[in-house]
C-alpha cells in the first residue's frame, strides 16, 4: 500500500517539476485512489474549536510573500501571514459575513453618500502606541493612492476626514454598497503611521517590524528561508491558543512531502490536486470550505461563440462532473453560476435558492434531454463550421477541461481545436485583447476578494474590459449600477439574483465548477477557518490542539 502511494506521489512530483521548470507537464491527482465525489463535497466554513494550547505550529505557504506591505504588493501568501498580524476596520468572518472590527460601528446617512466610522478607543499597536483617528485616516489615504493596489476601491470616494477624536467620515460621489466589504479587505488595514514612516521605502521587506495591532506580531523574516510570528502579549483582544507560527514555503512535491512527513503541520492548498495527493493520509485531515473561486469558460467575440445559442448549447453539453473528477481529483464542485458560494456574504438562502434554479442550464452530467436541446440550439443558430479555438495552458486541470469542452462540442455537432500556451503567457489572455485575438473560448478561473456577488457581476457591464463577448443589455447595466448603490442587503440580494439570472441566461461566461478553499491540517490540530476568509481573518488565533492532555 505504502509503495503504491509513494509511487503516485513520485509521479505527481515528477510531473509537477516539469511544470516548474517550464517544460510541458502538469500537476495531477494521485491516480491510484478514487477521486472524491465532486457532487457531494460538504463545504463548511469552520473547523471544530481547539481546546488546548500549542507552543509552535509549522505552516506551509505555496510561495514566499512578495512583500508584507499589502498596499505595494498583495499576494495570497502575504495575506495568509499578515491577516494574523494586521487588523482591518471591518472583519470578514469565517462564514463570509462582514462585521465591524477596529471600527466599532459604521453609520451610513439616509442618502447613502456619507459613512461615519466610530473607532474603538482601546486598540494599541505592537509598539505600545494607541491607534488614533489620524492613523486610520492616513492608512485610508495610503490605500487610496493611485500607485497602491487598493486604489480602485476608492473610486467613489469624494473625501475622507477626521470628524472627531475617534471618528472618520467618508463622503461618496455615489452610494457604494461594496465599500464596507472593501474595508474588511486590504483597503481596510490600519497601519501605525509612525512605524510605516520610520521604515520608509523598506516597509514590508525582510528585517522590518510590522506596523499593526493584531493578535500576532512579526518577529522574524529571513529572506528566502522563513517568517515567524509570535502571539503579542499586550494584544488588546483575546490571546490566541498558538503561541508561535513559523511559515516556510514549498510547491508541488515538496509541499506534499513536508505535510506527509510531519515537517509541516498545515497548509491552505491552493491547487486541489495537491490536496488530492494527500487524501487518505492518516495523519492529516482535510477541510473544504466556501470560496468565491470558480472555473469558467470565457467566450470571446471572435467566432461561433458570439452566438448565445451556441454558448448555451455548450453549457448544456458539458460534462462538469467528469472535469471535476479527472481534472481536479473530485475536489471542485459542478456549479451553475460563475462565482463560488463563498461570495454569499449575506442573504445566503436567497442566493442558494437562486443557484438551484440555475442548475437546469448547467447540468453536472448532461442527459439525453440536455443534449437534444443543445443540438436543437446549434441547428437553430445555423451550425457554424469553423472550429471553436479553446485557449488553455498545459496544467492538468485546464487540459482536462479543454478536452472536455472539445468533446462536448463534438457531441453537439461542432468542431473544437485546442491552443496551448505557456503559463507565463496565459495571464495575458486576461489583460490583452490582442493576445486573445485568435481564441474563441478561454479555459479560465476567477475569484473575487469581497464577499458579494454584485462585485462579480460588474464584469458583465457593457463597458467592462472583462466582457469579452460584447454582451450589451441596457437593463442589465442599470440593474448592476443600482445594486452597487443599494446599501440594504435584502434589496441588494434581490437585485443580485436578478442580475445573475440575466448574466447566466446570456451566457456571458459559462460556469463549470466552484473551487472550495482547502485546508490540510495535522489530525491532532484543529481550529482555523476553512473558508476563503483565511485571507482576511486571523485564522491562526483559533489554531490549537484538539483535546487537553
Amino acid at each position: 500500500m505504502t509503495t503504491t502511494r509513494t509511487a503516485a506521489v513520485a509521479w505527481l512530483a515528477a510531473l509537477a517539476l516539469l511544470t516548474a521548470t517550464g517544460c510541458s507537464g502538469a500537476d495531477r491527482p494521485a491516480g491510484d485512489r478514487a477521486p472524491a465525489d465532486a457532487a457531494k463535497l460538504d463545504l463548511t466554513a469552520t473547523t471544530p474549536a481547539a481546546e488546548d494550547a500549542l507552543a509552535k505550529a509549522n505552516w506551509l505557504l505555496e510561495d514566499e510573500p512578495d512583500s508584507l506591505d499589502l498596499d505595494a504588493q498583495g499576494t495570497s501568501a502575504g495575506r495568509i501571514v499578515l491577516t494574523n498580524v494586521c487588523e482591518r476596520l471591518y472583519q470578514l468572518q469565517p462564514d463570509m459575513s462582514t462585521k465591524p472590527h477596529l471600527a466599532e460601528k459604521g453609520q451610513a446617512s439616509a442618502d447613502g453618500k456619507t459613512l461615519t466610522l466610530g473607532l474603538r478607543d482601546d486598540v494599541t499597536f505592537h509598539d505600545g502606541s494607541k491607534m488614533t483617528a489620524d492613523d486610520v485616516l492616513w492608512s485610508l489615504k495610503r490605500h487610496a493612492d493611485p500607485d497602491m493596489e487598493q486604489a480602485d476601491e476608492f473610486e467613489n470616494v469624494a473625501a475622507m476626514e477626521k470628524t472627531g477624536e475617534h471618528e472618520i467620515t467618508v463622503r461618496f460621489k455615489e452610494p457604494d454598497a461594496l465599500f464596507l466589504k472593501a474595508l474588511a479587505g486590504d483597503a481596510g488595514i490600519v497601519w501605525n503611521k509612525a512605524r510605516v514612516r520610520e521604515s520608509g521605502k523598506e516597509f514590508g521587506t525582510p528585517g522590518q517590524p510590522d506596523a499593526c495591532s493584531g493578535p500576532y506580531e512579526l518577529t522574524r523574516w529571513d529572506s528566502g528561508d522563513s517568517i515567524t510570528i509570535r502571539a503579542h502579549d499586550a494584544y488588546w483582544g483575546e490571546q490566541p491558543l498558538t503561541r508561535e507560527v513559523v511559515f516556510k514555503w514549498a510547491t508541488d512535491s515538496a509541499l506534499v512531502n513536508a505535510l506527509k512527513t510531519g515537517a509541516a503541520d498545515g497548509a491552505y492548498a491552493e491547487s486541489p490536486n495537491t490536496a488530492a495527493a494527500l487524501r487518505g493520509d492518516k495523519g492529516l485531515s482535510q477541510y473544504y470550505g466556501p470560496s468565491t473561486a470558480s472555473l469558467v469558460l470565457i467566450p470571446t467575440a471572435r467566432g461561433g461563440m458570439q452566438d448565445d445559442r451556441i454558448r448555451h448549447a455548450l453549457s448544456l453539453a458539458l460534462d462538469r462532473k467528469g472535469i471535476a473528477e479527472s481534472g481536479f481529483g473530485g475536489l471542485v464542485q459542478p456549479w451553475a453560476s460563475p462565482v463560488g458560494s463563498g461570495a454569499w456574504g449575506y442573504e445566503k438562502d436567497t442566493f442558494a435558492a437562486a443557484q438551484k434554479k440555475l442548475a437546469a442550464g448547467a447540468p453536472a452530467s448532461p442527459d439525453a434531454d440536455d443534449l437534444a436541446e443543445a443540438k436543437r440550439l446549434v441547428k437553430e443558430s445555423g451550425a457554424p463550421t469553423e472550429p471553436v479555438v479553446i485557449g488553455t495552458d498545459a496544467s492538468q486541470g485546464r487540459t482536462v477541461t479543454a478536452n472536455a469542452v472539445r468533446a462536448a462540442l463534438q457531441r453537439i455537432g461542432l468542431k473544437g481545436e485546442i491552443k496551448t500556451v505557456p503559463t507565463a503567457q496565459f495571464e495575458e489572455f486576461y489583460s490583452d485583447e490582442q493576445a486573445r485575438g485568435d481564441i474563441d473560448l478561454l479555459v479560465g478561473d476567477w475569484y473575487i476578494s469581497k464577499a458579494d456577488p454584485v462585485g462579480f457581476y460588474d464584469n458583465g457591464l457593457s463597458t467592462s474590459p472583462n466582457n469579452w463577448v460584447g454582451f450589451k443589455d441596457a437593463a442589465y447595466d442599470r440593474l448592476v449600477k443600482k445594486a452597487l448603490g443599494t446599501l440594504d442587503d435584502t434589496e441588494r440580494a434581490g437585485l443580485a439574483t436578478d442580475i445573475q439570472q440575466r448574466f447566466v441566461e446570456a451566457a456571458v461566461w459559462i460556469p463549470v465548477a466552484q473551487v472550495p478553499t482547502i485546508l490540510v491540517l495535522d489530525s491532532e490540530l484543529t481550529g482555523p477557518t476553512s473558508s476563503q476568509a483565511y485571507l482576511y481573518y486571523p485564522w491562526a488565533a483559533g489554531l490549537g490542539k484538539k483535546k487537553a492532555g
Partner: protein
Amino acid sequence: MTTVHAIAGRISRRVAGLLATLFAASFVIFAAVYAAPGDPAVFLAGGRDKLTPERLAQVRAQYHLDEPLVVQYGRWLWDCVHFDLGRSFKYSDQVADLITARLPTTLQLVAYASVLFVVLGVGAGILAAVKRSTWVDSAVVGGTTLAASVPSFVAAIALVSLFGVQLGWFPVTGAGDGAMDTLHHLTLPACSLALGALAVISRVTRQAMADAAASDHVEAARASGVPERDIVRRHVLRNALGPIVTMCGLVMAGMLAGTVVVETAFGISGIGSLLVGAINTHDFPVAQAVLLLMVTGYIVVTTLVDLVHPLLDPRVKEATAR
C-alpha cells in the same frame, strides 16, 4: 621587471575581458528577459480583477515599463555602475539583499555536490582505469552510464521518496540552520545534483588515464621496472589531471546555474528558484543580477582552472611562456 609587467598585463587583459563579457552578457540577458513571453505589468497589477487598461498603464508608468528597451537598459546600467542593483519589482526589496540571503544556500549546495562528484567520480574513474577490462571496469562504466541517464529531478524524487518519506532518514524540505543541520538537510539535494556529474567525471577520468597509460614514457617506465603503483600515481594520473580538473571546473560552474530543479524538489529557496521566479514574472532587476552573478561565477571558475593548469602540467607553462 619584465615578468612583473607581463603578469600585470595579463591580469589587466583578463579583467578587461571579464568586464567586456559582463557588459555584453548583461545586454543580451536584459533583451532576452524583455523579449520573453508574458507582460510584467500583469504580474504587478495585483490580481485578475485589476487588469483594467487604466491600472495596467498606471503600473507600466510606475515601473518605467512603458519606456523603450534601450532606455530601460541604460537606466539599469547607470544605477549598476553606481553599485545600485535596484529594487525587485516583485519583492520591492533591494536586489542585493535578496541575493545575499539566498546565495549561501546555493553555494553550500554546489560545494557539497562538488565534493561528492569530485571524490566519488575521480575515485571511480581511477578504479575503472586501473582495473581496465575487468568486471570492476564494466561495473563502473555500467553504473555511471545508468547514473548519467537519470535526470536530476528524477533522482531527487526517487531519493526523497525513499530516504525522506519512507525511511525518514533525511528531512524532505528546507536548508537547515547550523553546520550539522545544513549538512543533514543538503545531503539528498547534493546527491541528486552530483549524480549526473559523477558519471561524466568518472568517464573523463577513466579515458584520460587510459590515454596517459598508453604513452611512450609510461611504457618506458614500466620497462625499466618502476613499481606499477608509482607509475599510476606519478606518470598516469599526473598526466591525466589536466582534462580531469578542467572538466570538474566546468561541471561545477555549470551547476551554479543548474540548481533550480533540485531546489524546487526540496523546497530550498536558493539562487536558482529566485531566478526562475524572476524570469516568470519579468522581474528585470532580479533576473539581471542573478544571471550576471552566474556569468561571473562561471568566468571565475574557468579562469581559476586556467591558472591552475600550468601548476599541474609543466608543458602548459612552457607553452604560455613562449
